[in-house]
């Protein structure tokens, strides 16, 4: 076995070091800045532990019942050490089981890293004692990192491609838009041509055919001045026609563009939302609800705007700019340069300005959102404000943020209005120089009035497309940010059951050696085993934060266990198809969410085709009927955001009715009756007993009286099942459960 090592970055007093944690099979060396500072014999170490502190973690080794600090690292490295710790402890435990560990006394001497290969030969002796298979983890880790790096790079490269691919279904739209645009541009550039012709051939005191005018005469012989007045009106009519056609084309293009945009946005929103629904809870809880809402709404909007307007627009503008430039250069390159050079200077300046202003506008945006947040904060807490009489303080707080926003906006506005006129003046300077040069050329007889005017007009037309073309990189960067956020979700692997098994669940549940933690360095449940027969009611008891809800969430398959398994009728939970599982599992939570809608819709949420009779039956069983029927609109009462406000107990009863209607084979009650008063709870107990009859139930409860009838009660403490048995058995055992019951009894007496 070769040398394996992990890196760490902090010394014992929080200084930065180049640390290496070197696993040599029999010995572990800890080196800081190339110097071995500590050395441990692997067999002395009972177990490792990662202690998470504030911004820093320590790896602790238990030796002779006492913990020793091995090394310190920032959170960046904590995952590696946590995984190492988990596997090492697991291997160690297994080895203990085997017994008769071959003891190898590796020298604890601190030698310089590099010459330590001597010890490696001896590792064979130890490997008999400790299962070394977990060590491949070190290598895997590197592979994974490498893979991630590659993936990262390919994602960055691929985003633009992916974004453009979103337009795949809209090829016809894109073709129509491009076609329409080309036509429009020809007209846009064409109008000045006719202008020139009009002036040179009809209005100029000296009728002379300029180059431009000649082009027109050649293309449209009927517009030449055979009969001056008729031809004059024909040219004007023709120009009018062109302007009219251009407007129509513009309109059609915008329509097609808009349609495509809304469709792309819809496609994106839908696939994003579908994806979010398909993700497992673990992925979901990685992001805040706000972030996901933001992504579905504003980021999709941003992308569709980019694809339909900005990208198409910018490409068009580039084409237009090139078209005009080519035309100018072809007609008179000196004139072209006179026009273009000042324009380029302005564009460069504008770009710099935008870069600078972007920061300032960002700040303005942040101040705006802060002001809104403050307002929302104060208004949501208005009861507290009134109760403590702190209105004046809150008014001041809001005024401050509001004034801050005004100051920033004001200064931004000022800057824009200071700079804008000068920039615009610069643009016109180019045109004036062109006019000057054109005038000189006219007097020299090299150009006609029409030509001079043509250049003057076209120079003005060039400005917009060039500015827009210069904006393209910025637009692209902005939408790439949005696109990345969206693709990050879209590309996330779906939670898929390993094997889409369907089965009619009977209700046998076996949990074997279940280990789970939300974060790798913090185990919530460690090696938990539990089994329940069909129809059993398992009561789960423990302190707040002990892991009760985590356990039932795992049974509900909202999370995937880190190790161990949950079997439903001897089938692994992870193998059962989603539909099959959800149809047969039910849950009533402590904090039940009712969707905006009627009570009827909320009860029938789990079974949309339920008859009115069934719904009333379920509500009656859940003791909800009596209060629902008294409401003005009965079962059609709208609840949720805008509707009737239900009390906690009422909400709970509705959700119990919902669960009753669902009729699950396995039921989880997570503090289902905690927000009810004792009286109502008593009433509901009856309902619950009906509900739990003949189905396997897992019930978490703080009020222990509700668990009295459980087949088995398990007490979770210190990440494990500390006690289990019936109510009577546990009372006789006089352990944690007994103490809890005593404490509650005392509370009752105290309350009386």
């Amino acid at each position, binding site marked *: 076995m070769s040398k394996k090592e992990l890196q760490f970055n*902090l010394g*014992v*007093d*929080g*200084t*930065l070091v180049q640390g290496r944690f070197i696993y040599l099979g029999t010995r572990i060396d800890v080196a800081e800045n190339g110097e071995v500072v500590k050395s441990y014999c692997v067999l002395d170490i009972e177990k490792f532990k990662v202690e998470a*502190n*504030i*911004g*820093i973690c*320590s790896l*602790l*080794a238990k*030796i002779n019942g*006492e*913990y*020793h*600090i091995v090394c*310190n690292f*920032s*959170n*960046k490295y*904590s995952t590696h050490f946590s995984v190492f710790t988990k596997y090492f402890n697991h291997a160690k435990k297994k080895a203990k089981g085997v017994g008769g560990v071959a003891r190898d006394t590796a020298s604890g001497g601190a030698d310089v890293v590099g010459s330590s290969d001597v010890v490696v030969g001896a590792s064979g002796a130890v490997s008999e004692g400790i299962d070394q298979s977990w060590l491949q983890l070190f290598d895997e880790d590197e592979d994974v990192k490498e893979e991630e790096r590659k993936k990262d790079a390919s994602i*960055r490269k691929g*985003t633009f491609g992916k974004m453009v691919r979103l337009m795949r279904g809209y090829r016809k739209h894109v073709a129509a838009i491009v076609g329409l645009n080309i036509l429009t541009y020809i007209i846009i550039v064409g109008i000045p041509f006719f202008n020139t012709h009009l002036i040179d051939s009809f209005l100029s005191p000296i009728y002379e055919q300029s180059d431009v005018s000649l082009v027109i005469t050649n293309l449209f012989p009927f517009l030449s001045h055979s009969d001056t007045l008729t031809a004059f009106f024909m040219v004007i009519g023709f120009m009018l026609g062109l302007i009219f056609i251009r407007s129509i084309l513009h309109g059609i293009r915008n329509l097609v563009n808009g349609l495509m945009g809304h469709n792309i946005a819809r496609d994106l929103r839908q696939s994003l939302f579908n994806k979010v629904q398909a993700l497992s809870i673990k992925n979901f809880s990685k992001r805040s609800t706000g*972030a996901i809402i933001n992504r579905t709404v504003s980021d999709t909007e941003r992308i569709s705007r980019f694809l339909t307007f900005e990208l198409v627009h910018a490409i068009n503008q580039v084409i237009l700019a090139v078209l005009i430039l080519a035309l100018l250069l072809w007609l008179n390159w000196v004139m072209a340069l006179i026009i273009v050079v000042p324009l380029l200077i302005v564009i460069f300046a504008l770009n710099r300005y935008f870069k600078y202003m972007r*920061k300032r506008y*960002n*700040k303005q945006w*942040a101040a705006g959102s802060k002001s809104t947040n403050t307002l929302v904060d104060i208004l949501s807490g208005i009861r507290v404000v009134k109760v403590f009489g702190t209105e004046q303080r809150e008014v001041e707080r809001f005024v401050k943020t509001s004034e801050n926003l005004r100051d920033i906006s004001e200064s931004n506005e000022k800057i824009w209005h200071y700079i804008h006129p000068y920039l615009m003046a610069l643009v016109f300077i180019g045109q004036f120089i062109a006019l000057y040069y054109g005038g000189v050329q006219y007097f020299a007889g090299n150009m006609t009035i029409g030509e001079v005017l043509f250049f003057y007009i076209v120079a003005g037309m060039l400005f917009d497309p060039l500015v827009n073309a210069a904006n393209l990189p910025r637009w692209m960067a902005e939408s*790439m*940010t949005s696109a*990345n*956020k969206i693709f990050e979700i879209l590309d996330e692997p779906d939670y898929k059951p390993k094997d889409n098994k369907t089965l009619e669940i009977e209700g046998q549940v076996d949990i074997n050696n279940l280990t789970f933690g939300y974060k790798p360095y913090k185990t919530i449940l460690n090696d938990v085993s539990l089994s329940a027969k069909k129809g059993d009611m398992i009561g789960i008891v423990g302190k707040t934060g002990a892991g009760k809800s985590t356990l039932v969430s795992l049974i509900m398959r909202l999370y995937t266990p880190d190790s161990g398994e949950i079997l439903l009728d001897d089938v692994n939970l992870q193998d059962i198809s989603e539909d099959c599982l959800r149809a047969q599992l039910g849950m009533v939570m402590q904090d039940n969410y009712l969707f905006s809608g009627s009570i009827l819709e909320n009860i029938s949420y789990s079974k949309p085709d339920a008859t009115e009779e069934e719904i009333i039956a379920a509500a009656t069983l859940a003791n909800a009927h009596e209060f629902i029927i008294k409401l003005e609109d009965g079962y059609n009462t709208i609840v949720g955001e805008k509707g009737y406000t239900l009390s906690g107990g009422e909400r709970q009863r509705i959700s119990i009715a919902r669960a009753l209607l669902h009729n699950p084979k396995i039921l989880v009650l997570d503090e289902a009756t905690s927000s009810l008063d004792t009286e109502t709870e008593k009433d509901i107990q009856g309902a619950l007993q009906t509900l739990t009859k003949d189905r396997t139930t897992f019930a978490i409860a703080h009020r222990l009286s509700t668990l009295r009838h459980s087949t088995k009660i398990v007490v979770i403490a210190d990440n494990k099942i500390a006690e289990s048995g019936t109510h009577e058995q546990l009372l*006789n*055992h*006089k*352990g944690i459960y007994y*103490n809890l019951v005593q404490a509650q009894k005392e509370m009752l007496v105290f309350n009386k």
Partner: protein
Amino acid sequence: MESIFKTSKINYLTPENAQFSKTEGGLLYCKWVESEQQKAKRKEDEKKFAKDKASKKSDKGADKAKDECDKPEGVVKLHRAFPFVTPTEYISVFKDDDEVGIIKDIMLFDETTRQLLGAELKRVYFSPIITKINTIKERYGFSYWEVTTDKGKLDFAVADTYRNIIKLGKNRLKIIDQDANRYEISDYTKLDKGSIKMLEMYI
């Protein structure tokens, strides 16, 4: 106000009632004199435990754990009550999950203990103080920072930058990077102009 102090009995640790030392493994060890409340609680626990012991034949592991748990000494951990306001005052001392007491001010203790406590605080709190921002680059929704801190030069990435720069008090900032590491700026208005300019975008 007087009544609050009377009813809430905080066990303040002073040189008179607490002694700190370091274990062989480098962890902080504390021996303290129990408060009346703690004593009462321990007595109760002991009673309960004796009963348990009587009812159950033998559970040596639990016995030992219980004994250790109740002794007013053991490996402890420190936790600042007001980390940004009084980093050396009001330091809570924990043994496992129970608060043993609060050190009102480290300065009350002798030099050796002060150093011991200071070192332990350094071990459990890591939050480099940024003294200069060299660059902040923004790409695809992440900002990449290169900074100089009191611990040396560091670079890190922050996702969702606006949300992960937290204003504490007037000018103090806390920055949380992608790996949940923390960085502090004690007063951003006192940084050099270049740093402020880069930072200003986010605050």
